[in-house]
């Protein structure tokens, strides 16, 4: 996407979502050259089932929810500062526009928690891929404010649409498109190169054990329970 296209997309999406939020996904889909996939619109809720509000999302805490499928994990992070939109360039020459943070401060971002390198993901037992807040840098890479996978040290930048900072990943993390409507948050789709097919291919056995069947694991959701990662995962493996 060239500079003109980039600015045009920003303007179009901003105007469209201002007039009617439901147009948001359609416009995004048209503008992103196949890099955006709309899914069921899903409300983010707390463990008690009530809608998640902005004040519930504490800065620098790593939250998890599952979207767009029952079994596909995503991270939600309030980065504590305004996160502007960015153009994400892929190694194959394609690019897409990441919309930046949402919420009053535009500080809330969300990404697929399936590592784009070799598909490590947070399970109830372990999470090798995690967010490292500014005050808790990685012992190995010494970097903070990043999402890092400890299996092969793939590093992603949550302030830059999940772009690869370092390590072996070929693609950024796919980002989850969030919309705020009347103080409530909805997930509406996935932007970027998602890893869902590889995820379902590779973890068939584990998903069958956890969800009863792969069909159940693949079911699309219309509501997502958001919780802190260490309440879902027994051992958060940091490195």
């Amino acid at each position, binding site marked *: 996407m060239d500079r003109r296209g980039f600015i045009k997309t920003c303007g179009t999406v901003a105007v469209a979502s201002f007039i009617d939020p439901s147009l948001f996904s359609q416009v995004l889909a048209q503008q992103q050259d196949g890099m955006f996939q709309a899914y069921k619109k899903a409300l983010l809720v707390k463990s008690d089932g009530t809608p998640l509000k902005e004040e519930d999302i504490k800065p620098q805490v790593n939250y998890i929810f599952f979207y767009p499928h029952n079994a596909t994990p995503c991270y939600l992070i309030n980065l504590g500062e305004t996160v502007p939109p960015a153009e994400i360039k892929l190694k194959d020459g394609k690019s897409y526009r990441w919309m930046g943070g949402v919420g009053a401060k535009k500080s809330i971002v969300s990404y697929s928690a399936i590592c784009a390198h*070799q598909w490590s993901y947070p399970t109830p037992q372990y999470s*090798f891929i995690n967010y490292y807040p500014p005050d808790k840098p990685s012992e190995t890479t010494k970097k903070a404010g990043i999402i890092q996978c400890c*299996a092969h*040290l793939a590093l992603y930048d949550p302030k830059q649409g999940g772009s690869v900072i370092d390590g072996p990943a070929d693609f950024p993390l796919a980002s989850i498109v969030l919309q705020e409507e009347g103080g409530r948050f909805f997930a509406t789709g996935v932007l970027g190169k998602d890893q869902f097919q590889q995820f379902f291919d*590779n973890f068939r056995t584990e998903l069958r054990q956890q969800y009863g069947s792969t069909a159940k694991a693949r079911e699309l959701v219309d509501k997502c329970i958001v919780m802190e990662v260490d309440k879902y995962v027994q051992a958060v*493996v940091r490195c």
Partner: protein
Amino acid sequence: MSKQWLGVNRRELLSGVVAVGLSAPLLAYSAPQKRQKAQVVVVGGGYGGVTTAKYLKRENPNLDVVLIEERPFFMSCPMSNHFLAGLMELSSLCFSYNVLEVKHGVRMINDKVLGVELDKKVVRTSSGYIAYDYLVLSPGIDYDIEDKPFYRDSLIYNPPAFKPGSEHIYLKRLIEDFEGGDIVISVPTPPFRCPPAPYERAALIASMIKRNKLKAHMYFIDANERPIINSEGFLSAYYDLYRDVATYITSAQVRDIDVQKKVVRTSHGDFKYEIANIIPPMKASKLLEEAGLLKRGQKWVEVNPLTFETSVKNVFVIGDASQSYLPKSGYAAHSEGKLVAKIINARIKGKEVKEEYLQMICYAMVSDKEAIMAETAFRYDTVSKRFIPTYREDNQRKESTAKRYEEWARGLWRDLFS
């Protein structure tokens, strides 16, 4: 009856019957030598070869790619110490090549490569010739034992278990049958396949002696002054955990092995053993020597460090057989395979690829529950024209690192075989 029968058509079948009838004793020699053509031929179905073949097809599904591997299935050397120490089943390390053919369209040939004729651009197998435009050789290592014949006997009795397959299975049986006595493990000077592997193996065997309360002692004979990687982590594990069951002897050369009397003779004395795991020096596969890619006295094939191309255009050597800035490991071979696939696909399209420096990450168990790790990044110094490594080691043994180690391996396997 179908015109096709086990891949042989009616005409071939009939001509074969005639040939058998006329000259049965000469059957092996008179069998028609098939000739095939592929755009890319990949030799060797280890980490490097599988990755190259898969990524070539993934980026360019129309490409005609042949992968030739003698073994019927893949067995991983990384994590094989887990198998030897009873921490992982052999089945976890083994994978079928089937997925490469069915899902990615790689033509798999389960055959032995007898030779490579670079001038004619053909690979010779036991069932015929395969011509190529691009050739990727990833045949791995051989044991370098020609000038030290005592290693030859030792190979039969004392499997080194540095080539995947039966060596591991036999060594595992020796370990399972072991009830007490002395164990000797020896390490040569580098380069050898997977630098932390002998040190990890020594730690796991010592750990097993302790865990099973065996009346046993391990002598770990290292030709090097200290562990060649994660020195601090290995030494502290040996000292803290295994002082009472193991002795680490450094800068010691193996001079002879008497397999009948079960004695290893070294520069630091003789050691009797119940089990010996003598790891011989290594060199690139003999296939590469016969192909003319190794000059006299060379043990590893010189390649362009940025492309892994040999002195012969469009012929690449990757993995443990090449002399590169990366250590010899499955992880490095995997990264090299991805890079070479990218280079070949770009060349076919008449494009260039950006320079890329690969990184290394590896782990090693130091007990049955804890591991240490090392990461190495490289930059190219244009003045000295050398690759400068930057090491980041985590020598604190941790259970969480052992979990990362397992995920590291499982991630690689997912990438290779999905």
